[in-house]
């Protein structure tokens, strides 16, 4: 899965147009990042499509309204994921525990491969969803969004050491949960 680092460069012009209030540029920005933002929210909220839609809407509205504040000196993706993290954390604090909803979509392939892939993804998603929030977010940012440790530290507002230790513990917990699901 491609990271956002390479998308930052191609988005520079779009970001500049967004600062000028260009609605088409907003749309282009949205199209570039929407699936990643939606996916991370979906996996964060246990497959809850409604919650993921709300988070995606909220993140992009905030992004569009505040983009004039973005000066381009720092990574755009860092800011974007900080908004995603904050939105997810805020919503998680407000929300009651949800039931796990397995709703991962399949990629093209044979029926057997498709089934196996879906089963595997569902297991991983279920195990991920069961992780505490502070371990779930770093895992999603690292492996689903392919962020660097530095980007994750900035998005999560903690040191790279903390990111490393949470990833390490998250891995161990995930491995244990996957074993119990098999």
């Amino acid at each position: 899965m491609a990271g956002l680092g390479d998308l930052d460069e191609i988005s520079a012009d779009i970001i500049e147009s967004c600062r000028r209030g260009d609605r088409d540029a907003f749309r282009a920005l949205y199209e570039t990042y929407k699936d990643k933002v939606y996916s991370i929210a979906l996996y964060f909220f246990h497959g809850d499509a409604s919650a993921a839609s709300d988070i995606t809407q909220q993140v992009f509205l905030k992004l569009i309204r505040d983009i004039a504040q973005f000066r381009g000196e720092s990574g755009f993706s860092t800011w974007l994921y900080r908004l995603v993290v904050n939105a997810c954390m805020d919503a998680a604090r407000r929300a009651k525990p949800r039931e796990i909803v397995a709703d991962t979509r399949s990629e093209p392939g044979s029926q057997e491969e498709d089934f196996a892939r879906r089963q595997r993804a569902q297991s991983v998603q279920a195990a991920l969803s069961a992780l505490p929030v502070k371990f779930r977010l770093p895992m999603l940012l690292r492996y689903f969004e392919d962020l660097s440790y530095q980007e994750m530290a900035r998005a999560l507002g903690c040191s790279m050491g903390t990111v490393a230790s949470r990833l390490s513990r998250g891995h161990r917990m995930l491995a244990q949960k996957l074993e119990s699901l098999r």
Partner: protein
Amino acid sequence: MSDELKDLPLVKAPDAIWARIEAELDRPSQSPRRFLPGFAWACAFAAMLIIGLYVLYRPKAEWDVVRADGSKGKIAVGDWLETGAASKAVLTVGDIGTVEVHPNTRVRLEAAKPGEQRLKLARGDISATVTAPPRLFIVDTPASTAFDLGCAYTMHADEDGNGLLRVTLGWVSLEWAGRESLVPAGASCRTHAKVGPGTPYFDDASQALQDALKQFDFENGGEPALEMALSESRVRDTLTLWHLLSRVAPVDRQRVFQRMVQLVPLPQSVSADKALQLDPETLKLWREELAWKW
């Protein structure tokens, strides 16, 4: 494990989301109206009047202030805010965070615009909590400038510029006259008049190390202070040693380097020669590797 995680499929966002976003964006705007020809001049006159009044009475860039007694007010760019021995206030930094102004503190709002929120701390103590793109929120003191990299921190300064930054979340870049100290959560950094930021250290570092840094940075501690800092350093204190590497005299650089690689083996991706030559890219790469241990 990593492969399984990477196999998580990207899920397409429903098309309806953009429609909802557009509806929100359009909500405040009004549909265009046709003007009756007879009113054209009147409308033009009214517009000019409104513009004139706006220019005369336009709101100044300002932050909201809530004092400890609950009274509310504003602080505009250029205004000073001073708290007494028993008073304090909370400033709202646009919609990106808050600054708590503690007793016996004097601050001035320097800038309040979308690309820059800037406060001057002339003396006293503040606590800042900011959620904004890095380097948007800035605090000037008499001997340093603190650039927020996404974080929460406290800062003390006296009128001469002597002070202390303590970071509780994220990172702060403390800069002054070409000197830069990167301070992560759990670490502190002193500032000193005419010198600027000192060498950052973790708050759980030994007192001997902290004292040695004070002597080295601000009291011409020289060789004994450096020796003490090296001998007292733990793995985590490579934060301190990484900063010292480029601050010691060239003749001492090798000693700092040796202590660092003794504590944490040099990563394969980092060239020893380039690190000793203080190549910026190499030092940055090394810092990112070391930060795993911080």
